[in-house]
């Protein structure tokens, strides 16, 4: 049972790490995009 638990823990661990990485990169890029759009608007005015 320990091996079974360990194997599924590895699966969930790696899946969550990868999903979390994508989500945090997406959040950072969206914030950066917002900042850049505002800066561009200011420049165009």
């Amino acid at each position, binding site marked *: 049972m320990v091996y079974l638990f360990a194997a599924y823990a590895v699966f969930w661990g790696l899946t969550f790490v990868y999903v979390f990485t*994508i989500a945090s*990169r997406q959040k950072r890029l969206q914030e950066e*995009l917002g900042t850049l759009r505002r800066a561009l608007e200011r420049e165009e005015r």
Partner: protein
Amino acid sequence: MGRRFRLEDFLDWLSGLTMIAALYLVFLYAPTEATMGHVQRIFYFHVSAAWVGFFAFFVTLVASIAYLRAGKRDWDIVALSSVEIGMTFTAMAVITGSIWAKPTWNAWWPWQQEPRLILVTILLLLYLAYLMLRAFLEEEQQKARFAAVYGIVAFASVPFTFLSVRWWQRLHPVVFEREGIHLAPAMLVTFLFCLLTFTILYFTLLLHRSRLGTLADEVEGLKQKLRSGEGG
């Protein structure tokens, strides 16, 4: 006002629901294997993760060819995204396989008796080199072109790794045989459903990761626009 249909949301939900169903099948529906006992339940996710790994590298091959033919940045993003996902799932297959090997073969990593272990390590290193190649090149078009060629060449290792268990027939069992898959009906249903679940999960992750690539391009485009505005 009705909500607009978003493919990401649909795939997120579908992935979640099929994953719950897959866990139900693995732990409650599939019978316990007579020789190995509960540890055999690792098989369903181990093989499915390996399948996604191989499939992801195949998608990289197709996207790389498409990029070289059409030169569209979208194909390059798909190729890169698929390598990332492929490496994650291949690593999963390797680690869960090693955990399964210990109680079954009495060794964590019997690479001297099982050539697939060496080949899968080479496979992972080859695709790690793909990511390193991209990290070291600076000019975007050159990076995409070199990566596409490398993505095509690196795929040669995938059929070798897949077929190695048939050629050498050492410790690793052959799942997909010429005559079919030798599993009890309830195990076969569970196995096929897990393959479907992991394939849906792959496309869900691919969509999210590709959108991330497009977003990064958009950010880069705005940065350049701002820089040129400052310069002018």
